[in-house]
């Protein structure tokens, strides 16, 4: 028996995953549930688990390359003998680099995952891979991940209509990325037209293109998506010292106390827990607060669920677990997606006395908290989706929040 191990689908939006490491080598015995490899998705690192007992067999998919979901990344076999069938099984652990160099006939059209071609080649007369190829490191400049099913020779291109459209729209078609079939159709041109133009780097200093981390790419996508939100900002000065003192006394983290204060204030005005959608206003029944956290490598927003109704002690435990996951890079999408209100706190930077934040898609407002000014007061800036929240609503929100900060006796 030889069963393929597939790149798992770990979230609705996941199109590709990137293996960060293989925990097992070819020939290793594995048990059902063992973590075979780690895969980095949009934001989190998760395990690929063995679905049965057996032995790991190659070829294994390379690490640090985007691989389409459901693509084969390795094999589970019944007996150790079967794992030896691979020519490269002798030099254990080298498979990953080897197959990152697909022996493709035409270098240009090798967008398809190396495995797809490789697995065919391996079945027959398997000659030892040239050692030179196996030590060449994977280039950082990887081709785009979602690739065409490579059937037949690819004629170059773009459709006549796509070219005509690009000419009409003043778009350089050579910069338009191809669609799933490897061709540029009108839909790709239109997508390029509505997207912000890439900088023209040809005139500037020399450069390298490095692939952004999944986390960075996800933030970039979300920020572009948020451009469609017509937003406004409103600010107020409040003294945060009473809340700080109270949270210290109650042995709660100040971030948690702040999130709780926001949740209670959001709960008083349903519009702050509502999001504009094409179908209508989505009024949510629960206040989920997303809290922006600086991981050093980028931004992530773990979510405290039902932050208005549940006891503070429970939230505190949740927060501890979330922070732990942030540190180990093991947040799963359920941990960081779908907040209905966000808080971003730059208070640890004493120089920053004011800033405003971008309303993420899916929320109607985000609160930006800076460091206190000389007068001891802190500027809180609320960015709101004006389709849902109007200026006076936002002003009243800040008033009510201010009262909670002034008198934090509610914090237990």
């Amino acid at each position, binding site marked *: 028996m030889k069963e393929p191990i597939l790149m798992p689908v770990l979230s609705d939006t996941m199109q590709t995953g990137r293996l960060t490491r293989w925990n097992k080598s070819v020939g290793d015995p594995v048990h059902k549930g063992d973590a075979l490899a780690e895969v980095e998705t949009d934001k989190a690192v998760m395990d690929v688990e063995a679905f049965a007992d057996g032995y790991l067999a190659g070829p294994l998919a390379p690490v640090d390359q985007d691989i*389409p979901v*459901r693509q084969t990344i390795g094999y589970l076999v019944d007996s150790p003998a079967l794992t030896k069938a691979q020519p490269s099984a002798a030099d254990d652990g080298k498979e990953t680099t080897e197959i990152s160099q697909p022996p493709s006939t035409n270098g240009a059209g090798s967008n398809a995952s190396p495995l797809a071609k490789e697995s065919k080649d391996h079945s027959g007369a398997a000659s030892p891979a040239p050692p030179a190829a196996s030590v060449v490191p994977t280039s950082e400049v990887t081709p785009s991940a979602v690739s065409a099913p490579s059937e037949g020779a690819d004629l170059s291109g773009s459709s006549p*209509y796509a*070219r005509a459209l690009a000419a009409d729209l003043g778009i350089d078609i050579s910069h338009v990325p191809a669609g799933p*079939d490897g*061709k540029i*159709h009108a839909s790709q041109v239109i997508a390029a037209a509505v997207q912000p133009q890439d900088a023209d780097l040809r005139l500037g200093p020399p450069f390298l293109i490095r692939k952004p981390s999944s986390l960075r790419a996800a933030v970039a996508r979300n920020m572009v998506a948020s451009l469609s939100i017509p937003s406004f900002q409103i600010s107020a000065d409040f003294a945060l010292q009473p809340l700080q003192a109270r949270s210290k006394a109650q042995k709660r983290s100040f971030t948690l106390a702040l999130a709780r204060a926001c949740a209670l204030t959001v709960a008083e005005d349903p519009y702050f827990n509502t999001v504009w959608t094409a179908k209508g206003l989505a009024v949510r029944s629960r206040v989920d607060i997303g809290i922006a956290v600086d991981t050093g490598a980028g931004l992530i927003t773990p979510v405290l669920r039902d932050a208005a109704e549940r006891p503070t002690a429970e939230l505190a435990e949740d927060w501890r677990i979330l922070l732990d996951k942030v540190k180990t890079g093991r947040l799963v999408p359920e941990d960081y997606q779908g907040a209905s209100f966000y808080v971003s706190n730059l208070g640890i930077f004493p120089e920053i006395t004011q800033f405003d934040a971008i309303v993420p898609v899916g929320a109607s407002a985000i609160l930006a908290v800076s460091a206190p000014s000389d007068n001891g007061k802190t500027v809180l800036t609320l960015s709101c989706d004006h389709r849902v929240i109007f200026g006076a609503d936002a002003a009243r929100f800040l008033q009510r929040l201010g009262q909670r900060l002034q008198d934090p006796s509610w914090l237990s």
Partner: protein
Amino acid sequence: MTDLLYWQALNRAMDIELAEDDSVFTLGEDVALYGGTYRVTEGLLAKYGEWRVRDTPISENTFTGLGVGAAMLGLRPVVEIMTINFALLAMDAIVNMAAKIPFMSGGQFPMPLTIRMPGGIARQLGAQHSQRLEVMFMNVPGLRIVVPSTPQDAYWQLRQAIRSDDPILVLEHELLYFQKGAVDETAIAPPLHQAQIRRAGRDLTCITYSRMSTVAQEAAAELASEGIEMEVIDLRSLSPIDWESCVQSVSRTHHCLIVEEDCRFAGTGAEFCATLQEFCFYQLDAPIQRVAALDLPTPFNGALEAATIPAKENVVQAARKLMGLNQGVSQ
């Protein structure tokens, strides 16, 4: 407005034209006593007599030639050739005489000749009786060819053909004779060679004719359930072709799918494809696709026969592929 079968609509058209114009007459194998192989001339012998509804021997070139001669002298003959396959025996009369005489006589001889021919693949009639020879006639300048796909069009187009002074082939599909449809005898007919949009759609244009028009409409209904809106254009005429309707549609949808019962190689679709890319090249967002019959003599076995011609599923698949939607993950 009445519901008629396709053959009844043709029968009605014949009846009216015979009644209204004394110069109209019909001849062919089994048209009189038997009433026509597909009943199109049923009851006409009794009504109009054997001079105007006339049985002939099995002699296609001869009786078609007789039709040509009668047309030259001012009559309006409607020749029935029992199937288009037998027209091969009448090629000289059709191609060398009917199509040429008006030109070679400098217009001195008109050619108000109508030739009706059942055709297409019916059910297990064998390779020699299942040919789609329309493409052969399309290649003959001087002939007009209409391909009605509904009882209403059958009624309109046969009447218009009989009244035309040009030689016209009316290609009737054998599987359509017993299809029912509304026929409005009072409605004003569209121009004889004008195409009709059978179903409107924004995503792709399906260009088709005759029975494949109904297959394409079934496919369009299924595609609609997947969110693909396929426009179905029934050409109604293969010579001349209403390119304007096709071009207008393709310029909107930017995708073109051709569905024909004819064989793919050098079939009708080849001509559609070649001409449309001349007109629409800069409007095309994907190569024009053809769904056509396999290039082989039609097998007699029913299952094999069905496998040689396009079915709804083939059209649906081709449309999905054309829209770039057929690339699911296959393991």
